[in-house]
């Protein structure tokens, strides 16, 4: 059984059909990519998967469990985390506080135990901080823990978004154009990091990316979108050779 299974997903805004009968699946432990020209509907698909958009039809299953139509926070709690195409950090808060936010759905103490300073609440706080620090370290920005997130370099902000998502201990992580705006060196680091996410933590990765070099390098499977439809689905080699893909997408690149 696939970890993430999307079947006949449909989404439209007014008359605009943004997603038309999209079906695909992601196996546990895989690194897969979603590619397609601008406006193809990739981010919209992510928004459906994470509960931000309510699809018109179709179903989404995570680990066999239907998650279609659940609110975003429930979906995150069930093990699906994401990053945003245009970085959405809590810029006015510290880097560590950003990373700690991922732990919210993995902890439970509320207002009353905080006021009473219950020992179990203090321990949970320690655990949340430690987890935040650990994920900052994992992505390599632990030394900036106490700076404001908005003050980080662009590349480090992207890393922080990753750390924050990973801190929610997901089963699968969706990355929306993680390489956008990075230089070649940073892209290499990112490829390395994406591999480490899967290899060291076992988290499944699905990424949207325009950088073909990066996509071909890291993905085991690629799904190709064009105008809200899936036009191809397969290994990098198969996709690269697919005439429909070449026409719709690769042909216009480079």
């Amino acid at each position, binding site marked *: 059984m696939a970890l993430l299974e999307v079947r006949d997903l449909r989404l439209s805004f007014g008359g605009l059909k943004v997603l038309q009968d999209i079906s695909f699946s992601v196996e546990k432990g895989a690194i897969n990519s979603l590619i397609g020209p601008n406006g193809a509907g990739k981010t919209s698909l992510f928004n459906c998967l*994470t*509960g*931000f958009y309510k699809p018109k039809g179709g179903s989404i299953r995570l680990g066999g469990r239907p998650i279609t139509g659940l*609110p*975003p*926070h429930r979906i*995150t*709690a069930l093990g699906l*985390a*994401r990053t*945003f195409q245009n970085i*959405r*950090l*809590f*810029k*006015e*808060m510290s880097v*560590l*506080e950003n990373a*700690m*936010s*991922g732990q*919210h*759905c993995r*902890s439970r*103490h*509320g*207002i009353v135990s*905080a*006021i009473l*300073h219950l020992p179990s*609440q*203090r321990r*949970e*706080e*320690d*655990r*949340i*901080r*430690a*987890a935040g*620090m*650990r994920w*900052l*370290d*994992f992505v390599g920005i*632990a030394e900036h*823990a106490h700076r*404001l997130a908005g003050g980080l370099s662009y590349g480090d902000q992207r890393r922080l978004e990753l750390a*924050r*998502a990973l801190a*929610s201990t997901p089963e699968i992580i969706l990355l929306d154009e993680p390489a956008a705006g990075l230089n070649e060196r940073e892209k290499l680091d990112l490829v390395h990091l994406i591999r480490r996410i899967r290899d*060291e*933590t076992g988290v499944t990765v699905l990424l949207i990316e325009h950088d073909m070099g990066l996509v071909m390098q890291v993905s085991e499977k690629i799904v190709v979108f064009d105008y809200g439809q899936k036009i191809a689905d397969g290994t990098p080699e198969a996709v690269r050779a697919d005439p429909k893909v070449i026409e719709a997408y690769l042909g216009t690149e480079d």
Partner: protein
Amino acid sequence: MSDGASTLSAAPQPPLVRRSFLLWALAALACALALPHFANAYVTEVATTALLYVVLCLGLNIVVGYAGLLDLGYAAFFAVGAYTTGILTSEFGFNFWLTIPVAMAAACLAGIIIGAPTLRLRSDYLAIVTLGFGEIVRIIARNLDITGGASGLVGIERPEILGFKLMQVQHFYYAFLALALLAVFVCLSVERSRMGRAWFYVRYDEDAAAGIGINRVSAKLQAYMMGAVIASVAGCLYAAKMTAISPESFTFNQSLLILLGVVLGGMGRIPGVVLGAILVALLPEVLRGAGTYRPLVTAVALLAIMLFRPNGLWPDKRG
């Protein structure tokens, strides 16, 4: 990567109050404790009012400063507390202290009734609904028999502590000081807890917060209810101090004044909010000499502060 210990987990939790700040806080506390021994009854009375506003502004700050919700009817929860104490002591002979948990429960309930449907909508709706709620509570208080109508309630029982009855201005000054200190402690504790951070996440980026697993409706509702509870407790003590309350203490103007205190000092940060609250209470007294020009001078003073310190007098470092 499980939740096992790590060398990096050494990052300690920050203390409730920073060392450098502790000295100032203690000095301020010493002054506050000594004040009734030096000041006359008038000054002590004004200081008591200032402490009342400190509590109210800290409560509203949870809603406005932490969770980023605009509440224009906060005085309604203040009224809920005051009327709960007023009705239960004067009509039903309740002990004052027993009215506090009842008032807290009533404020929670009112908070859920107003907040639960509204907080699902866009934030702007809350401003409108709370504005309406504030007026409704006041109008209900004006028109019911049990609340004493327009003339309000009189003969509210004064509280006793271990056989000692709170009577004089000084007694209530210390009672409000204790309540204000409690409010500061509560806010400090919650501010740096899991739920406190969740409020900031929601305030700074609601979508990102939802995407990272925070139930935004629940977080906002909890902020709204906690603010409500704090205002209601302030209301209980206020009723006991005044022994008489009327609907005119809980007008839209009152809500605005509390909001002004929060915004003036610098939303979100406790020292700023305390400063703003004190200013809001003192300004009318300081400007007494201005006679009929007082509202004008007050407005100009506030405008000047807003112009020159747009983030408040003592802004949140988070910006």
